């Protein structure tokens, strides 16, 4: 029997609540399987059920059959915890989300790969070391030019996000796990890095290995090919060949999902016309960080109702520029001039990671109450706004961590809109959201600009999105700036 993993009627419950409903899937070698869905669709739970690492209080029902070559198939859910954990690394390899947090900060990457050979596979130190260097070489982590310290001897904090993800892959290689489970492997990475990680994953799956990827990133799913499953609300809506799904999705949600890809958005009718009005102007802005020039002599004008995008690769200073324009950071040179009557309260911001923009111990209702007490809007106003943003009032009773990222970002939008802002900075505000939520939020923003003359400052690395949304684009590069 060849290598395969078969999920049959998998359900996951938390007490009486059914979180994942009756899922059946089969993974075979050579065909990567990608589960696509928004956060909270239950796709991660499926992966943790396979791994055997569900959080306490969640129970999996159904069957997961693991077939290893030359061995009788085993049903994972029935194995005792110790035996399941024995499969970790050796058979089941998990690529973590945000690997820069998942690597041990106190060990060099070589040591962390080496210990897999040494501790898990029982090799001698010298052999393990050599193999670890090979593994790192295989994921293209080696020094193109001689660097100090060499890449292999660096600590995680000295590596970029993409490099960390490749280290994690090298570790999976080292253990030789035949089932590779990748959990949102491109979360927080920009396009270029995403592509390189996708390439690496494909290389891994090319051999005798199973690859299951969890993502909301359509581009990644497309690059991986194979089979795609679409999940929503704990249900598996459809499982189809990648090509077929991308061209002819059967399920309504799948269609929406595909259409939500910025590349497929309908072309937006520009609502803004240059009226000569001016909200904010940046003159000759320069900023240096760590001795490096992010940008210099930058001129920029924002007008009411205008959508301005700041774009460029990660680390180029997009967010810094946005913050300078909002007055959150000082510029090293130049000045930001606000139109008269523009108060700080009328400048608002949406953050990349919605949960971090809310105090974790306050329910949303408490937050809105405090805001109401401070600024005195009516209950009606809030209710109308929430409805407009598609948020059920019952969500207010929850803590920020207990609602989805898309919902939370809309809550953040609601919070900002209550102050009647004239300029809104959306700092990668949708980069962590699934495409449907992203589209929802972006369309809302676009409508608001058109209706209320809100100026939007969009910081994004997503060229497609920028192309669909922006009236004006500021493109930052590693050195200097092109406007």
């Amino acid at each position: 029997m060849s290598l395969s993993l078969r999920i049959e009627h998998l359900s996951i419950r938390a007490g009486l609540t059914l979180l994942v409903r009756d899922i059946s899937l089969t993974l075979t070698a050579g065909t990567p399987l990608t589960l696509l869905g928004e956060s909270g669709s239950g796709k991660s739970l499926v992966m943790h059920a396979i791994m055997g690492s569900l959080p306490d209080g969640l129970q999996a029902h159904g069957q997961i059959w693991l077939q290893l070559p030359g061995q009788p198939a085993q049903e994972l859910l029935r194995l005792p915890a110790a035996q399941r954990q024995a499969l970790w690394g050796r058979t089941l390899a998990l690529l973590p989300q945000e690997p820069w947090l998942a690597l041990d900060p106190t060990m060099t990457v070589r040591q962390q790969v080496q210990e897999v050979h040494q501790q898990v596979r029982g090799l001698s130190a010298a052999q393990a070391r050599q193999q670890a260097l090979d593994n790192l070489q295989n994921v293209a982590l080696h020094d193109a030019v001689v660097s100090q310290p060499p890449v292999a001897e660096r600590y995680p904090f000295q590596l970029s996000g993409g490099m960390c993800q490749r280290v994690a892959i090298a570790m999976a290689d080292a253990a030789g796990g035949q089932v590779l489970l990748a959990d949102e492997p491109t979360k927080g990475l920009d396009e270029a890095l995403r592509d390189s990680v996708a390439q690496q994953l494909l290389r891994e799956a090319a051999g005798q290995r199973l690859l299951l990827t969890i993502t909301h990133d359509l581009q990644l799913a497309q690059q991986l090919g194979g089979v795609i499953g679409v999940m929503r609300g704990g249900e598996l809506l459809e499982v189809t060949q990648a090509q077929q799904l991308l061209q002819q999705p059967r399920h309504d949600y799948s269609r929406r999902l595909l259409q939500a890809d910025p590349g497929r958005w309908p072309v937006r009718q520009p609502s803004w016309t240059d009226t000569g009005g001016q909200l904010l102007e940046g003159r000759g802005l320069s900023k240096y960080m760590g001795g490096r020039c992010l940008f210099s002599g930058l001129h920029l004008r924002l007008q009411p109702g205008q959508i301005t995008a700041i774009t460029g690769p990660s680390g180029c200073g997009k967010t810094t520029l946005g913050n300078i324009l909002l007055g959150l950071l000082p510029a090293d040179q130049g000045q930001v001039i606000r139109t008269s009557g523009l108060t700080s309260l009328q400048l608002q911001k949406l953050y990349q990671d919605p949960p971090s923009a809310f105090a974790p111990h306050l329910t949303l209702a408490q937050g809105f109450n405090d805001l109401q007490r401070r600024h005195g809007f009516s209950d009606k106003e809030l209710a109308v706004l929430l409805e407009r943003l598609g948020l059920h009032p019952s969500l207010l009773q929850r803590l920020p961590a207990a609602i989805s990222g898309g919902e939370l970002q809309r809550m953040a939008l609601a919070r900002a809109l209550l102050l009647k802002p004239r300029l809104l900075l959306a700092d990668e505000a949708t980069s962590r959201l699934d495409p449907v939520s992203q589209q929802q939020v972006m369309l809302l923003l676009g409508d608001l600009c058109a209706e209320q003359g809100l100026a939007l400052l969009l910081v994004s690395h997503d060229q497609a999105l920028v192309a669909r949304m922006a009236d004006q684009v500021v493109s930052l590069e590693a050195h200097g700036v092109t406007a």
Partner: protein
Amino acid sequence: MNSTVVTSPTTDIHAALAQAARPQPSRWAQRLGWGLLLVVSGFALLGPWLISADPDRQDLLNALAPFGGHDWLGTDPYGRSMLARLAHGAQLSFLLALLTTLMAVVPGVLLGIVAAWRGGWLEKALVALADMIMALPGLLLVLLVIAFAPGHFIPLCLGLALALWVEFFRISRARSAVILQQPYIEATRMLGFGPGYILRRLLLPALAPTLLTLASFAMSTAIIGISTLSAISVGVRPPTAELGSMIVELLPYYAEAPALVLLPSLLIFLLVLALQLISGGRKS
């Protein structure tokens, strides 16, 4: 654009996971903590009212009476009722400990937050000050403050607080620095809230569990500190009943009446245990 209003399983999954991820201090431990606190503080608050015996009334011929007699917990070497002395001692000690801890926590936490908030030279200066004070033996500080007004309670608390505030300063500075970098602080400011709101609504609640744990230890440190000072005769003056000085007073009789020495310690233990159980015993 017309999006559907849903409360889908989507949000249920978030709620369920949030529930699972949050470490819940066990319910029974917290209840036990509150129960203990009620008993101990009840004894300290109401005891002196309910127990008619005079804690200072001596009867030298009835010294070191055993448990269970007229005075329930026996008598001390002067023939004074242990029960009455424990109740009065608990009242005074807990009050002093509370006062000391407040005197340490309030400036410690506020300065810690100010340092983290303002940064720059102010933070450097405050950190240097805290380092200096840590490098000075706490006992010296306490002795110096007390020497100005021997036998009075406020300098005693002040002296102890002078040595204790540094820990609160360090912890609140370190933790505030992390919290203040969170985007939600910036977001709150942009929403028009002032420093007062951020302090009251965001910072203090986030610091509270850690501070409560530290403070409960600080309370026991304060009471033990007073006893150490009593041991070198600079603590509380006789015949005042105070748990720390009672330990010192009773120590010579440890061979004849070992329980007497341990009773005041037991009260301190129960108080700290109760506070720790309530705070969930989580430091980090």
